[in-house]
Every structure is written in C-alpha cells, then in structure tokens.
C-alpha cells in the first residue's frame, strides 16, 4: 500500500480525477456476481456498523488529550476528501464510492502502519484496522466490477490523502483520528445512499 501511495502521489493529489469515458474497454478478471449490488450494500453496512467502534478504539489508544477533546482533535476536517452526492445516478454514486474507498483504503494502511509503531500494544485496534481494510478491498473490487460490467467504466482516477511520512508523532495521531472521524461520518451517508 505505501508503494501504491507513492505511485499515485503526484502534484495535484487530493483532487479527484475524471473517470474513464463510457465507451472505454472494460475487462474484469472474473465475471461479476449477479447480486453484486447486494454485496456492496452488505459490505457498506458492515463498514458502517463497525466504523464507530473503530473510531472509539483509535482515540482511546492514543491516550490523552484525544478522548476528551474529540471535537478539537478528531473533527472530520479532512482536506481533499473525495466528495459524495447521494442524489446522483447510481453510476455517479458508484464512481464516487470507488474514489472514497480507495482514499480510505490508502489512509487506513498508513494509519495501521503508524499505529503499529506508536501503539504496538493496541492489538485490538490493529486487528480492527486490518479487518476494515480487508472489507474495503472487497468493496472496492465489487464496485469496480459493477462499474465495469454495467457501466463499462474500466478505470476511475482516484486521489489519496496528503503524505504524512514527514509529520511528527502528534500530527500523525491527530490526522488518523480526523480521518477515522470523517470515515465514520461518510460511511453512514454512503450506506444510506445505496
């Protein structure tokens, strides 16, 4: 995932890029399951169901001042977070969902890596982060399949969050908390939209 982050890191990162035109060639390794949309909904529901617990686990593991200052340290003020319009077409919503999940997947990977260094004893947090990342990978695959098969969208340009490798420890903790706060907020909206 860091490699993915590096590969996609370029000037202008943070702003979503347009997806592939409709008439582009689209191919998937495996045919989509007929109930892929149902699977997408289930995966969204699963993520939505665990997002709050993950958020709590995260800020608890960081220690003070995080648990008592969530509004200041963990407010969902994440710049460049991909937008989502619940009233758009299914195709548009799927494209936006793809961007969001790709963004979150990369961010979760960085957070997991940081937390393993910063809080090596917070095993439940590590486990929860890993499970969430796994579900997101599956969701991303299903969304891609749906876009490809139904809407013939072979490629969607995605954006990732800012590079945090040069951030200090406190900033990393804070950015992770903000991102998980944002994730908790967005995943609820997205789940309702589908």
């Amino acid at each position, binding site marked *: 995932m860091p490699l993915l982050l590096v590969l996609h890191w370029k000037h202008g990162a943070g702003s979503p890029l347009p997806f592939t035109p409709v008439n582009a060639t689209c191919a998937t390794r495996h045919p989509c399951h007929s109930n892929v949309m149902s699977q997408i909904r289930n995966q969204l529901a699963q993520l939505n169901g665990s997002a709050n617990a993950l958020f709590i686990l995260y800020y608890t593991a960081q220690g*003070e*001042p995080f648990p008592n200052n969530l509004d200041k340290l963990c407010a969902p003020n994440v710049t460049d977070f991909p937008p989502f319009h619940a009233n758009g077409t299914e195709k548009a919503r799927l494209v936006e969902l793809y961007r969001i999940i790709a963004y979150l997947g990369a961010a979760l990977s960085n957070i997991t890596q940081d937390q393993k260094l*910063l809080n*090596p004893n917070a095993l439940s947090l590590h486990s929860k982060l890993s499970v969430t990342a796994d579900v997101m990978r599956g969701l991303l695959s299903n969304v891609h399949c749906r876009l490809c098969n139904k809407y013939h969208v072979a490629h969607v340009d995605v954006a990732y969050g800012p590079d945090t490798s040069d951030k200090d420890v*406190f900033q990393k*903790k804070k950015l992770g908390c903000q991102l998980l706060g944002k994730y908790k907020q967005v995943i609820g909206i997205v789940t309702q939209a589908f």
Partner: protein
Amino acid sequence: MALFAVFQTAFALALLSLRTCQSEVLDEYLPLAPQSLNVSINATLQHLRLQWIVHQLPYQELQMVFPIEISRIETSKVIWTGNYSTTVKKNQVLHWSWESELPLECATHFVRIKSIANDARFPQLNFVSNWSSWEEVPAPTPGDSQWLIFPRSKLVEEGANVTFCYNSETNHNISCYLGDELIHREQLDSNLYTFQLTNVPFINIYGITIACWENNRIDGAVLFVSKVLEEPKNFSCQTQDYKTLKCTWDPGVDTALGYNKQPSQHYTLFESISGKKKFCGQKNWCDWEISEDFPKTYNFTLTAENYLRKRTVRSVFDLTDRVHPKAPESVQFKNVGTTNATVTWKMPVLGNYVPLLCHIQLHDKETVRQEHNVSIRVNGEFLFRELQPDTEYMVRIRCIEATHLWKWSEWASQTFLTAEAAPSKALDVWRIVRSDKGLHNVALLWKPLSKFHANGKILFYNIIAQNLDKKSELKRLCIHAPANGTELTLGQGSYQIQVTANNSVGTSPASEIVISGSSENEEVEEERINGTEDGFFISWKPRSGNMTRYVVDWCAHPQSLHCDLQWKHVGPNTTSAIISSDAFRPGIRYNFRIYELSAEKTAYLVERKTGYTQELAPSDSPQVVVRNLTSHSFALSWKAYDTESQSGFIQGYYVCLKSNTTQCHPDSVRVGLPDKSTCCKHDISDPKQKTFLVKNLQPESFYEFSVSSYTSAGEGPNTTFMKVTTPDGRSYMLMQIILPVTLCVLLTAVMCYWKSQWVKEKCYPDIPDPYKSSILSLIKSKENTHLTIMNVKDCIPDAIEVIHKSEGTKAQFPGTEKLFTESDSPKPANLYLLPAEDFSGPAPCISFENFTYNASACDSDSFAHIPVPSTALPNQLGMLASPDNVENTHTNSQEEIPAGEISLNYVSQLASPMSGDKDTLLIDPPEPVLCSEYKMQMAVPSHLASPVPSEMAASLEPF
C-alpha cells in the same frame, strides 16, 4: 637615467607602500582567524552546528582556542558564551555543536566566533583574532500553520530538563499539560513563551504527549524519554584456542525507543595497540580475531553509544593470562572392577601444548567421594581406588591453564557402574514366636542389607532351620527378594535358624538365631514408662550374665493389622536404650519387649514396657448399662474398657449426674456443662472399678447421667447423657407381691388342669345315669314294658340307723316306716324328692337310697360309690323338683345334722357284686338277675324317662 631613478624611486616607494599596506592587512586579517563560518540547525537534536576553517596554518597543527558567542532574538541578547579548544590541523574543517535548551524553531539565533592561537610550542605566535560578524540563524518556518508548540517531538534522557516554546504574535492565552498536570509557563519575549519540564521521567518507550490549548485549538508534542545509557559492566576478554578472543560484558538497560526514535545502543570494540576497531553486532559479546603473530598485550576500549550518550570501559591484559580452556572431551572408563576404575579424557588442543591442571571429582548419588588434581598436556588418565561394588559413580573433570590459572573450563561428566561383589554383612534377623499345640509358629524377620553391604542386587534369601535335638531334621527355604520376612512352623524342640542373603555373585555371612523349645516367658510384668516427643528411654535389669546382647522390639504401628515389628540391638554392657522413631505418634500405646540374647543365640524375655510418647485424653467413653433401678437408686456398670486402644493410661472415670435437685452428694462436685447446665460429678479414681451405685434418689424423678474416662491428659469426650426415671415406691412393692402370687396361682391352675382327671376321680367321680343303664332295656324286654325305673316306693329300703350320740337315742330296726314318718327325725333327702303319684307299685328289688354321703361313705372304696359334688347336684335335680327346694332341703339336711353328733349307718340289703367303675359296668354288664341287680338310685316318672333330650345329655356328659 634620472627618469629611471625617479621610476626606481617611485617603484621603491610603491613597493614600500605596498609592503606597509600588506603588513597592515596581515596584521588585520591574519589567516588564523576563523573563516567561512556556517551555522546550521539539527532540528532533531536541537543543535546549532557550527562549521569553519582556519586558513594557512603556519604549522602542521596548532593548539587554538575559539571563543563563541550565541545570541537569541537579537544580537545584543547573548545567551551563551564559551570556548572551544582544539588542536587545529592544516586544512581542517572544524565542527562544533551547541545544544539549545529553547527549541530553535521559536526564535532567531545569532552566532559569532573568534580565535586565539595559544600554543606553548610556538610562544611567538601569540594571536587573538577579532570576532567574526554575527551569523543569523532564523527560526525554521513551521510547515503547518496549526502548529503551536515546539519542538514537535524531542528525545531526551530520563531526568533531563526540557523546554517547550510557543511563539505567537496573535494569541497569548495558551496553556500546556503533561497528562493532567499544568506545565509552568514563562514569557521570554513579547511573543515568546516557554514551558519548562524538569526531571522528566521514563514512562514508556512510545513517548509521552504534551498537549497545549489555545482557545479552541489543541496542539501537542510527543516527548521521547530514553533511559540513561549505562556503562558496560564485567567487560572481559578470553581465548579458548589462541585464535579468537571473545569479549563479553553486561550491557545494562536497553535504551531503544519506539517509533524509531532511538535504536538500542550499539557497541564498538577498539584495540589501541593495533589501532583496530570493530563494530559489535551483539549487545553483550564480541569476537576479536587473534593474528598469527599475536601481540602479548591487548588494550581494549569498549564503547556503548546511543543518540544521547557514550560510555566507555577499558581492559588491558596479556593474552596468556586470559586462557580459558574448553571442557574436556572423550571422558571414558576402562578396567572397571568392583573397587577400581580408570578414567581417561582428552583436552582440545590449546596452542603449543599448554600445561593444564585438571580437577577430578568422583560423586556417588549423595556426595563427592573423591577429589584429585592431575597435571596433563592433552590426554589425561586417572585410576580410582576404594570404590564400592555395584555403585554408580559420576566423574566430573575440568581443567585450567596451569601457569596463570585464569579460569576453569566447564565440567565434563560421565557415569560408570562398578561390578557386583558378594554381600559383606550378615542380615539383622529377629523373630516372633507363637506356640500353639506344641508347635512353634515363627515369624522370621530381617532388615534388608544396605546398599553398602549388599554389594549388588539381592536376589533371594536362604533360610535353614535345624532341629538342635534332631540334627538331621533340616528345613530349607528360599525367599525371593524383596521379601523381608517369612513364616515358619517348627515342631517341638529347639531350632537353630540361619539366614543368608544372596546376590548374583555370592552369599552373605550367615545370621543365626535359636528358637527355644520352651515357650516364651509371658508372665513378665508390664511396666509403664513415659515417653517424650523424641522417643522412649527404656532401662532394664540384667537377668543373667550369659548373654551376648539385648534386643528391644516393638510395633511401629500397634493399632494396625500389620504391626510392623521393629527391633534394636543393644550391647551386653548396656541396660538402657533410647528408642526413637518417626513412626511414633502421640496417643498411641507402644509396647516394648526386652530380650536377652544368649551366647547360643537364644532370646529370653527380660522385661516389658508400655507407654506413650504423649498421652492424650480418651477418644471414647465406656458403654454404660443401668441395673437395679429402684425408686431411690440405680447402679451403673460398664464393660471392661479396652484400654489398649485408648490414647492414654486410664486413670479413672467421671460419673456426671444431672438432676433437678440443687444439692450434690458430698463426694461429688457440681460442674458446669457446655450447654450451661450443671451436673454432680463423681470421681472414680480406680480404673478397675467398673460399677457405680447412684443412690439417695427421689422416686418418680428424672435423672440424666454420663460416664467418661480420663487420663493424665484429660477427660474423654462427654457422651450423650442417658436418661433414667426412678419408679413409684408403692407400685414397686405391689409388683413385688403380685407377681409371685400370680405366678403361684398360675402354677397351681396349670397343675390342677394337668391332674384334673385324677382330682375328679378322687374328689367327685361320675354318678351313673340311671336312664342309660343297660338294666332298663333288660327289664323292658323281659318283664314289664311299663316298668321304667326303680321307684323308691318299690324298694324295700335298708335300715338306716340314726344315732344321736348326745341323747343316746337309738333307732330300732326294723321299725323303718316309723322312722320315716317321724317328723322330728332327720329325713333322708330322697323322701322329699320322689313323687308318690308316679309310683308304679312295689317291685321285688333291693335298692339303696342316694344320700349325700358323709365323709366316711365317700371313702368307702369297696362300694366304689362316686361322691356327688355339691355344685352338681342342683343341675342334676333340676328336672325333678324345684331347685330351691332341693337345695334348701339338701343343705338343710346337711347343716341340720352335725357331723359330730349324727352318723348314718347304711346297711345294704344286698352286696353288689360289681365294682363301682362305671366304665367297667358298661363294658361288661352283669347278667340280669332278679332283685340282685344294681338299681338306679333315682326313680324317674315314665313320661320323663324317654327319650333324654340331647341338650340334657350334653350337659350331663361330664358326669
């Protein structure tokens, strides 16, 4: 020429001027001044790094001092001044760092430097430069405008002081916390605040967060606190093969921090003589290669280093002093016998055959048996002597370099087993003899040989019993190990028993004991002894002088089925022994028997002892029975008490009596009971007394009692009280009388019933029934069918004389009629009974009246008259006349005639030829002879004569 001169002068002046100028410049800008000063920031370490050069050193090196000044915010605010002394070499770039307490991000710093040449080797070169110009070091621009506090993350040692700063032109209302603790704030400048943390502790390797609030903004910094790097301890180097030196040390605490803030300290080994340096990959050891032409002396410096500190230790040594041989190899044994064995071993080659001193230890299972030192070069060998047969030994060998004795090698160990030998000691044998019907049942016991004496595994025991009276009578037994006893049944006479133990090699010396033909003297009195926790002290008196030793035996577990007989030998000159055993328990009675063992190996019982190591209170109480209960007393008795099973010598009994009375008998005391009641306690101090009479009781009263025994240790358990109610006195007496009387009556009744026939025959024989007489049928059939039964009128009565003794009146016969008509004379009863109208006429028969006979008549056996009981008479007569009349008449007739005054003389007209036996009469009736047959005593009217009702017949049946 002049022009040339002028030109030359001008040139000279110019040159002079130039030299003067040059001299001034040299004076002003000597090359020894620091130049090219460059100041940079190491944000991680919060260091200002200075870098400069000194041009054109006149010498290869020069000792110089560089004064340095550092200002903060503005040049006038000098915060630090110091000197940096060093030896400057030609073309050397000089470095110096200054650690700022205040984070460099918070304020601009200024640095200037100058130089002083102050080398004693060049006194003429006494030079001080001017200060360089101020070099400005601007504060790093934060990459994020949200950042409030600096440094963002800092690495410090435990116990350090840390300063955080905050530089804000807009907001001055900021406060910072470490956990819940507010950090003291200090204002350095109009926009610059500092927060000072002193003596920071080590909390964890992942850092501690300092959180700062500015209105609605929160920022934080993470402080990484490292443990203080410790100096390596126990640093030493040694070689085992003259090829490699292995240096080891104790690294102390690991100073690594999380998030890659600081790795573990690393170690570097530097040898100053060779100038070689090695980075040690391990934290507590490092190998150093010894070159072929190895130096004799080494000077090692071990440096431990982390981001914050360095620690060094040194070790100087000669290589030959640090030889630590490897453990011996190939430890083997040869020529292993019963008492000898040879061990060989080999040492790893150590250089040029260095002399070694080896230390050998011989262990058995318990301890070190032998220790030896042997000098060797490479191969070692040693012979062990005085070993024990059939014993496993362990040999341990270690060696040391013999010259410098630096350090012993590790132990090398190996075990071996010596060969077996024949057992070396006779068995310790003892016996229990029980005589039964002339036979001796001998329980033969022996103690297993110790491993020391067994010299191998004992396989079996041989037993030979020889009759000393009949030498040819031998009994042989082979008992397989691990048995330690057997049973023998021997006949009469004395027997000598020999017991030997055998292993695979041979036989032990024989152990002998003689069983005497005479039975053991069991009449020796038993004496009580007092034991202690340590055992029993037993002493006895010698019985005879012809003995070899004494034997004391006892049961280790006397209360179990197998008593586990123990015995102890005591020398002949000793008449006491202390018997101690781990098996002894308090409250258990142990019985000891002391035997003399004669020279012929015969045992004679000398004394008996019994005692406890510690007496305890009785564990149970006797079973009590109440006897002889009366209204005023009762007796208690209990069975012979099993004192053997008691936990102490029974010294007596307590009888505790509860009653409603408040007074106790004078020989008892009132004691309280656990249930808060009281009882009168009688003390029976004689343990042989097993009865107790409780007296002076009240009738019809309720009593409770208990009986408990006691020993020197106390009283037995208070058993449940038994209840007794004394009976009423009168009813008791009545019972005393009524019971025997009732028994007598019953006995008499039984006797009477048993002899009823006899009594009946004697006292009231059956009266023959005239209606059943066979004569009737005879009369009917032959003479007169109307004639039924004899009527009184038909008979000519015999004369009855009534004799009045007092009056002397004599009735005259044959004036019979006159006699019956006289009113003042006693009248026979039948005169009233027989009705005159039914009289059928006279008959030529002889009859007799049926008077109630007097005593003399009843006793007349010759006529066999059966007396009629007075009670039967009314029934018999009831059919004939009024019972009242009959009874009255009959009674009157008896009463009116005094027995002493009147006697009736019955004069029979005919003597009956038959006996009075009715049965005989019925069976063998007489021949009908006119007027000579026995006539019925009563006349019955014809209409009543036949037939007799069955009821009546039944009622008359007994007669």
